[in-house]
Each structure stands twice: as C-alpha cells, then as structure tokens.
C-alpha cells in the first residue's frame, strides 16, 4: 500500500542553523510533492510545490529537493528562526487524467527552533 514517512521525532535545532526535514514514500509515483506548515489547531499552510521533473525549488529561506529515484524529498529551512517552529507536512499528488487533486499527507515532523 502507499506509504509516506516523515520523521516522527521532533527536530530541535539552534536559531540560525539549517533545518532539514525528510519525506520518503513507497508504492507511489507522484506527479508533484508539496510541503505545508501547520501550527497547533490550525489548517495547513502551503509553502512549496515541486514537480516530478524538477530537482530543486527555492523560495526565500526555503529549499525543496525531489529525488524520484530515491523516492525522497528534502525540505530545508536556512537561517532558522524561532518563528519557524511548527509541524511541517509533506503531501503527494498523483499524475494523469485521474488527477482530482487529492493529496496524500505524511504525519508531519515537528520543528523546534531554540533561540
């Protein structure tokens, strides 16, 4: 069955360092992968989308890589700040004419940035 795995353990880093979060998937060939931020009791907030034919995408301090051979995406936050503390979700979207836009989410990794 399709599986998306994100590190369930919280990631604790010092302010100013780069945070790297991992998303691995199996039994799936996504057309694209998205990263979301979720704060407690709130809805997911869209951050970045990367397509299957793209290796890397950047937006300000955020960088996403996508390796369809390894079936893995890495999400980096450079120069991290305490305000970056949140849970980060990866979500996969499928390809083709049957693409209704349904997203399959990982369980998320909680990032804690300490001042």
């Amino acid at each position, binding site marked *: 069955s399709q599986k998306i795995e994100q590190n369930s353990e919280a990631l604790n880093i010092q302010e100013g360092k780069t945070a790297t979060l991992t998303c691995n998937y199996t039994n799936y060939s996504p*057309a*694209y992968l*998205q990263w*979301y931020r*979720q704060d407690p*009791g*709130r*809805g*997911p*907030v*869209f951050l970045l*989308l990367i397509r299957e034919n793209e290796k890397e995408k950047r937006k300000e301090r955020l960088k996403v890589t996508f390796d369809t051979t390894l079936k893995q995406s890495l999400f980096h936050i450079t120069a991290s700040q305490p305000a970056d503390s949140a849970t980060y*979700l990866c*979500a996969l*979207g499928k390809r083709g004419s049957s693409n*209704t*836009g*349904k*997203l*399959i*989410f*990982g*369980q*998320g990794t909680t990032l804690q940035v300490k001042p």
Partner: protein
Amino acid sequence: EPEVTQTPSHQVTQMGQEVILRCVPISNHLYFYWYRQILGQKVEFLVSFYNNEISEKSEIFDDQFSVERPDGSNFTLKIRSTKLEDSAMYFCASKEGNEQYFGPGTRLTVT
C-alpha cells in the same frame, strides 16, 4: 490576500445528530476538497468536488457524508448521523493549479 474561510470554528454535537460544516473557498477556484485530521494523526482526504459533482471520495466518505455547493460561494459538508469517531478537525481546501489552500478548520466534537 484571498483565503478559505470555515464556520463554525468549533461544533459540539451529540451522537446521532446531523451537522453541517460550512466553507467559503477562494472565489476563482474551481476545485474544492474536504479533509479531516483526528487529533495527533495525519491529515486525511475525504472528498474532492469539481463542476458541481464529486470527482473522488475516500473510503471514509460513506453514506453518512454528503457535500454540496448550494450557491456560488459556499461549499458544505454534511454528516447525517454523527458517531463518536467523527470527532476531528475538518479542513476545507480549494485549488488553483496544483496548489491547495486550506481553511482554518472546524473542530467537531461528538459526545
């Protein structure tokens, strides 16, 4: 900046009662979704809606659930006879391209 809105923010209901959760998607979006998130668990897809009909639904979305776009702006999720296990956050989303934008959610508590 346009955003998805949802009401109410919190709904408490008794088991067996009907609830309607409301959403106003972003105005020029054409694809709409409901997801749910049980406390401490993953965000799970429930249903997608396009061109006034359901385009895909999950196994969770059984006969107790229905969706409707009653007018040009609202998108609703109805649960006909709530169960304890329906307690969760329910998120509405709408889509432009492949990017989905989520509302703040409705916390449904079934007692």
